[in-house]
């Protein structure tokens, strides 16, 4: 087990280096001179002398060779220093501290909702295969994995926000300021974000559960007279959860990807929306920081999933 973990850690480190290279060099190929864009957005371009532009460039470190810029950037990242936003004139760290908790709040709720309800729905559909639960759940899972999240958001805004007026249609409030309003505002975005994962989990759970309940040891469990609850929860569920755990590892990436769209639809000031606006504003320092942070979180989740997977299923370790 220790060798396995060590091997995975070394692999992850290698991938991490590749990720930083990717993020840095891809972003530096951006069209347009970031300094000129910055100047055009904040002051009058005509009033700037070439010397002033040069000074600004020097201030942001953009006049050094690209390898040096990369090295500076990486060493900064390790110190938690993500640079200064050209557009907001603020430390990216400060920006991230403001925006990240919002996405995390939204994303974690969606992840939990998707996992718990998805596993439950898949379990029920498998155990009651062909009965009404299955006939309702299975088609719904097909809808869930195909519906565009941004469109679902708009449908919900139309139905529950504009027509029925049950829920506020946009914005975000911190739960520490006003818990009730915060929850009401989050209901629709969280459901939107969770739907794909919920449906995918339910499908995976249903098919792996159907696979498992055909196994001999389940028949044995039935034969020795265990109650249904025992057979399903104690014996069948444990093994069917393994593929679902893998899916949950991917789920983190899916949530971050979805948050870009959901935050745009519901006007939530999280990192997803910050990313979109930074891309349009060519604010490459912010884009770099956000993509890096998300990629590292995905990398770490996959690492944890892989290691726990090796723990659940010892056959993996030796292959």
């Amino acid at each position, binding site marked *: 087990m220790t060798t396995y973990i060590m091997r995975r850690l070394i692999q992850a480190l290698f991938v991490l280096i*590749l*990720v930083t290279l990717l993020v840095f060099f*891809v972003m530096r*190929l951006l069209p347009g001179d970031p300094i000129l864009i910055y100047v055009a957005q904040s002051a009058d371009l005509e009033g700037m002398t070439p010397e002033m532009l040069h000074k600004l460039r020097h201030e942001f470190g953009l006049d050094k060779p690209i390898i040096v810029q990369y090295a500076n950037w990486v060493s900064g990242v390790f110190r938690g220093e993500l640079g200064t936003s050209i557009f907001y004139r603020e430390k990216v760290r400060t920006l991230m501290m403001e925006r990240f908790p919002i996405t995390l709040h939204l994303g974690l709720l969606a992840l939990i909702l998707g996992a718990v309800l998805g596993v439950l729905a898949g379990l029920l559909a498998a155990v009651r295969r062909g009965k009404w639960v299955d006939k309702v759940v299975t088609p719904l899972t097909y809808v869930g994995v195909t519906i*565009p999240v941004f*469109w679902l958001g708009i449908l919900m805004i139309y139905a529950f926000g504009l027509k029925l007026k049950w829920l506020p249609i946009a914005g975000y409030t911190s739960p520490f300021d006003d818990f009730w309003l915060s929850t009401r505002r989050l209901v629709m975005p969280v459901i939107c974000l969770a739907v794909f994962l919920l449906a995918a989990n339910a499908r995976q759970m249903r098919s792996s559960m159907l*696979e498992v309940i055909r196994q001999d040891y389940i028949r044995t469990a039935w034969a020795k007279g265990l109650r249904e609850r025992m057979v399903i929860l104690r014996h069948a569920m444990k093994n069917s959860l393994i593929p679902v755990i893998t899916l949950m590892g991917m789920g983190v990436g899916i949530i971050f990807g979805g948050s870009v*769209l959901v935050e745009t639809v519901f006007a939530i000031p999280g990192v997803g929306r910050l990313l979109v606006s930074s891309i349009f504003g060519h604010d490459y320092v912010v884009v770099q920081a956000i993509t890096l942070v998300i990629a590292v979180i995905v990398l770490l989740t996959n690492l944890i999933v892989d290691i726990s997977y090796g723990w659940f299923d010892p056959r993996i370790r030796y292959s």
Partner: protein
Amino acid sequence: MVEKDTTGAEFQDAQPLVSEWRRFQRVFFSRGVVMFGLIILLLFVFTAIFAGWLAPYDPYKPGVGKSLFQPSKDHLLGTDIFGRDTLSRLIYGSRTALMVGFISVGVGSIIGITLGVIAGYSGGISFMVIMRAMDAFMCFPMILLALVVASVLGGGIQNVIIALSVATIPGYARISCGLTLSIKENDYILAQRAMGASNRGTMLRHILPNAFPPLIVLMTTQLGSLILAEAGLSFLGIGIEPPGAAWGAMVNDGYKYLLNNPVLSFAPGLAIMLVVFAFNMVGDGMRDALDPRLRGLL
């Protein structure tokens, strides 16, 4: 995973009782929902090809004094803010979806499969480098990677195609690498080596055909996800430039007039969903018909 085909290769002279193709047809066409998906797909492709004849109006020309019409006999789905017929734009939007989907899958799969087969077949350092690079790519959620690549390259539909192709490469590479690793353990590959066949020939003539069934299933379902991703990107305003029609962008345009004219947003979203659903269904049907053991793996 593909033992079925290896036995086929061993007994090439013996005629199977039921041909592979027959068996495929029987399973594939037996499920109603798969047939439903197939019909939607055919309609979708037909619409995209014959958009010029099907569309009742010019999808790009603004209609003076016809802004935001409700659905009526003349304009079945109403008109947008510029007075353009929504149905015509919807019909033309299918071209964007079809083009982006097919080209991205084509480019992404060719590059990804090549990398995956080379990594799996050669092993060693090239396996390490290729697969770790793919792992690095996979740390970025697909829409995020496409978003960043598209922004680096600038707007325009061709850059969205490049972005989405790049985003799909690691998926193909990973699957085809896994398939190659298991196929190359077969005796007929050993025989090829013993006979002194070239590596390239072995990969092209033996590994690739045997890895084909799962890959074609992946490509079909990928088409759906790519159309979904393209819709997401164009919803955010990346990709097709006005006055071009893309379903995602149409959803966003209609969003502003949700109370006056909800059809503007609802119709293109429904179109996206139907097409993605159709690709998923046909992919599932193909998977079950080609090799039921792939169920749960793809």
